[in-house]
C-alpha cells in the first residue's frame, strides 16, 4: 500500500527506557493523522524513530515495521536512508529558531537542502523561489540574505516547512509545529500545513500535546500514554466518547470553566495613564503607553496580548519592581514607592516558578522568607494554613525547588505571595508552562482564592481561553497600548479590533463544535 504504515513499533532508549511499546498507525496519502499525548508519552520518540533520526547510542533498540510505500525503513542502511529523508519524508520541528543553523543565511540553507535532494544546480534558484512562495513568503533578495535570528517565529517556521518540502516528500512528520509560536501565528501555520497536505496530496503525521488543536486538523486521532496508544478514532469519537481515563482527562482538561458575568463593584486598584519605558543603549524604548484599568476586590481582570505587547512590564510596574515613567498606580490611596509597604499590599507570581525560587533554599525556607523580611510572627501556623489553602502537601516542605513538580512549584510561589496577605495578586502567565490538567487545577485555585480572600487579581496571559476561565473582564493590549476592553465573553464574541479578532480566531474551536464538524482535510480534497 502507499503512504506510511507503522506496525508494532517498539523503541528502547539507553537507560534502558521502554519509550514506545507497540505503536501501530497508518497515514494514507492526503490524510492528516494526529498523535496526542502528554510530554514523555513517547510521541516525539516515535516520530524520530519513523524518520530514523534518534541519536545512535549504545542501548538504542528499535523494532517493528515502518513501511513507507511498501518499503521497510527500519531495514535500510544509513546511505539508503539518506535518500529517503528529504525526498520521501519531510520533518517539521517544534522550535523553529532551533531548527535552523544560526550561522547560515536562509538562502544558503534552502540551496543546501535543494542540492542535498538532487536538484540540478541550474534549477535551484527557481525551485527556491517556488518553495518560498508556496509557504507564503516573498522571495526577495533580503529574505535570502537574512539570518535565522532576524526572522519572526512564524517566518522561521515557514522556512523550516519550505526546507522540509525541498525534496518533494510524500509524507510530512510534524513534531509540535506550533507550540513555540504566538497564538495568531499558530493558526496561520496550521492553515498552511492543512493547505499543503490538500494541494500536494501528502500524508501528515501531526504530533502534539494539544488535543483540541489536533482534533481540529486530523481525520484520525491517536491518544498515546506511556508508549502505547490508549484511544484512537475520528476526532468526533475520541472527543465525544473517550474510552480511556487518559483521553477522558484530556478532554475534561480542555474544557475550561467560564467566569461569571462582570458585576459592578467599587474599584480597589486603579491604574491610570501608565507609561513605562526602558533605556536601550542610547535610545529609549516605550514598552507601555497610556494604559488604564481598574480592579475591584474579589474581581479578576485579564490582561491579554501577544509577546512584546507590554503585558509583563505592566505586571512588574504594578508589583512595584519597575518605576513607571509617568501615570499612577493607586491602591486604596497607597502607591508603590516604599518597597516594603507595597509588598504587603501587592504580590507578583512570576512566569517561571522554578526561576523564582532560590535553588539553595528548601520550600520551607522559601515560605519563611516573607516572615524574615517583614519580621512577622506565627510563621509556622500561617504557613500551614496557606499550604492547605493552595493544596500543597506539608510533607514537601523539606524539598528543594528542583525536587518539586511544575504544578507544586507554581502552588509554592502562590503560597509565598499569599503569606503577606496582599490585597492585589498579579499573576504573569500563571499556567503557560503547565500541561492541560495542571492548567485547569491552577486556574480553579486562582478563581477560588480570588473569591474567598476578596483578592483583586490581575491575570496576564496570551491565552484567551485561560483568561476567560476566571476573568469576567479583559483588557487587550497590543504594542503597549490598550486596543480593547470589556466583558470577556463580549470581547471574544464580537472583537472590535483586528488584533483581538486574530487572537480569538487562533483559539482551537470549542470541543462541542468539533463533534459536529466535517473534517476539511479528508483525502477527497
Amino acid at each position: 500500500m502507499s503512504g506510511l504504515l507503522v506496525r508494532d513499533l517498539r523503541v528502547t532508549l539507553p537507560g534502558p527506557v521502554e519509550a514506545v511499546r507497540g505503536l501501530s498507525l497508518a497515514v494514507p496519502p492526503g490524510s492528516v493523522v494526529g498523535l496526542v499525548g502528554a510530554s514523555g508519552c513517547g510521541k516525539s520518540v516515535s516520530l524520530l524513530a519513523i524518520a530514523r533520526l534518534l541519536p545512535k547510542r549504545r542501548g538504542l533498540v528499535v523494532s517493528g515495521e515502518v513501511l513507507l510505500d511498501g518499503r521497510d525503513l527500519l531495514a535500510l542502511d544509513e546511505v539508503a536512508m539518506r535518500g529517503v529523508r528529504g525526498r520521501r519524508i519531510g520533518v517539521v520541528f517544534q522550535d523553529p529558531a532551533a531548527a535552523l543553523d544560526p550561522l547560515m543565511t536562509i538562502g544558503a540553507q534552502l540551496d543546501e537542502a535543494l542540492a542535498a535532494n538532487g536538484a540540478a544546480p541550474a534549477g535551484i534558484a527557481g525551485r527556491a523561489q517556488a518553495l518560498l512562495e508556496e509557504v507564503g513568503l516573498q522571495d526577495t533578495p533580503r529574505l535570502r540574505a537574512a539570518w535565522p535570528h532576524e526572522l519572526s517565529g512564524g517566518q522561521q517556521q515557514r522556512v523550516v516547512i519550505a526546507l522540509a518540502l525541498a525534496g518533494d516528500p510524500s509524507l510530512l512528520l510534524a513534531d509540535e509545529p506550533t507550540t513555540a509560536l504566538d497564538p495568531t501565528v499558530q493558526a496561520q501555520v496550521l492553515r498552511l500545513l492543512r493547505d499543503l497536505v490538500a494541494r500536494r496530496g501528502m500524508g501528515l503525521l501531526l504530533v502534539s500535546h494539544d488535543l483540541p488543536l489536533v482534533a481540529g486538523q486530523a481525520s484520525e486521532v491517536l491518544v498515546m500514554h506511556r508508549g502505547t496508544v490508549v484511544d484512537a478514532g475520528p476526532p468526533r469519537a475520541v472527543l465525544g466518547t473517550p474510552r480511556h481515563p487518559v483521553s477522558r482527562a484530556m478532554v475534561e482538561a480542555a474544557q475550561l470553566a467560564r467566569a461569571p458575568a462582570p458585576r459592578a463593584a467599587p474599584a480597589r486598584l486603579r491604574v491610570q495613564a501608565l507609561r513605562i519605558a526602558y533605556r536601550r543603549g542610547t535610545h529609549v524604548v516605550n514598552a507601555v503607553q497610556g494604559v488604564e484599568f481598574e480592579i475591584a476586590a474579589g474581581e479578576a481582570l485579564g490582561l491579554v496580548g501577544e509577546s512584546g505587547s507590554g503585558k509583563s512590564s505592566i505586571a512588574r510596574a504594578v508589583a512595584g519592581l519597575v518605576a513607571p515613567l509617568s501615570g499612577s498606580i493607586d491602591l486604596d490611596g497607597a502607591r508603590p514607592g516604599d518597597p516594603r509597604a507595597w509588598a504587603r499590599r501587592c504580590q507578583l507570581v512570576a512566569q517561571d516558578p522554578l526561576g523564582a525560587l532560590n535553588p539553595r533554599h528548601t520550600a520551607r525556607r522559601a515560605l519563611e522568607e516573607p516572615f524574615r523580611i517583614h519580621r512577622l510572627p506565627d510563621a509556622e501556623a500561617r504557613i500551614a494554613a496557606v499550604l492547605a489553602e493552595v493544596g500543597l502537601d506539608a510533607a514537601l516542605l523539606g524539598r528543594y525547588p528542583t525536587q518539586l513538580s511544575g504544578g507544586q512549584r507554581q502552588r509554592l510561589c502562590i503560597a509565598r505571595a499569599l503569606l503577606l496577605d496582599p490585597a492585589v495578586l498579579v499573576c504573569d502567565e500563571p499556567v503557560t508552562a503547565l500541561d492541560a490538567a495542571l492548567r485547569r487545577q491552577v486556574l480553579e485555585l486562582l478563581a477560588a482564592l480570588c473569591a474567598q480572600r476578596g483578592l483583586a487579581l490581575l491575570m496576564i496571559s496570551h491565552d484567551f481561553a485561560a483568561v476567560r476561565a476566571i476573568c469576567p473582564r479583559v483588557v487587550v493590549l497590543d504594542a503597549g497600548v490598550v486596543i480593547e476592553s470589556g466583558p470577556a465573553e463580549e470581547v471574544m464574541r464580537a472583537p472590535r479590533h483586528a488584533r483581538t479578532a486574530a487572537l480569538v480566531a487562533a483559539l482551537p474551536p470549542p470541543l462541542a463544535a468539533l463533534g459536529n464538524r466535517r473534517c476539511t482535510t479528508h483525502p477527497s480534497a
Partner: protein
Amino acid sequence: MAGALSATPADRARGLGGWLAAWLGGWGQLGLAITVLAVAVALLGPALSPFDPLAPSGRRLQPPTAEHWLGLDALGRDVLSRLITGTQISIAVGIAATLLAFALGAGIGLLACAIGGPVAGLFLGAMDLLRTLPSILLALVLVAAIGTGTGPVTFALGLAFAPVFARVARAGYLREMGAGYVTAARGLGASRVRLVLVHAAPNLVGPLLTQAAIILPRVITKEAVLSFFGVGAAPEAPTWGRLIAEGTRFVERAPHLVLAPVLALAVVTLGLSLLGDATRRRLDPNRVAG
C-alpha cells in the same frame, strides 16, 4: 548547588572524611593528599631540614647519598634542606598573593558592582581589559617598578591576578541580581542589603573559592618563574625558582640540582590543580541542585 554542598544521610553515616572523599573523587583525593603534604612540609619547615640550608655541609655537586638524599649543590649545601625552605617560601608567597588577589579583585569588584555609576563602571572595564594581558607580563612590570624581594613579589602577583577575581565577582553579581529568585525576593519587599547578602552572595562564594583554588597553583608557578628570572622573592633565599636557576648552570654535571626543585614544583602544582579542578567540577554554578 545546594545539593552539591549538602551531604546525604548515607554520606553522613560515613563521616566527614568519607563525605569529603566522595565529594572530591579520585583525582581530587590525590590532589588533597599532595596539598596536605606540601602544607605540612611548609609548616614544619626547619624542623624537617636535616642540614642548614644556607651553609656548606659537604663536597660540591655531590650526587644523592644516604646522608644527603638529594645531594649537594655547587657550594656544597644540602639540596633537600634548601628545597624544604623553598617549599615554605613558595607556598607562603602563593597563598598570600592569592589572598591578596581575592581580596582586591572580589572585594573591590563587588563593591564597584553594588555602588554602580560611571566611575565603578570604568574601574570594572579597566579590570576586564587588564585580565586579557598575560599575568606574567603584569607581574614583571610591577616587579620592575617596585623591585624584588618577598614582599614586593607577593604584592606584584596579588595585583596581577586581581582582575581575574574581579571578573568572576562581577559576572556572578550580574547573574545573581538578574535571577528570578532575586526579583521574587525584591517583590516580597526585601532590602538591597538582604538581596545581596542572603540571596546573591551565597551563590558567589562557590565560584570565587573555585577561582582561588584554580589560581593558587598558577601563582606558585609564576613566583617560581620570577625567581628563576632573578626577580623573585629575596635574592639569597633558596626558593624553587632560584634553585632551578642555580641548577641549570650545572645541568650536565649534576642534573639532580634541577630535577629536585622542578619535580617539587610540578608535583605541588599538580596536586593543587587537581584539587582546584575537583572543586570547580563540584561547585560549577551550572550544576542543578537536587
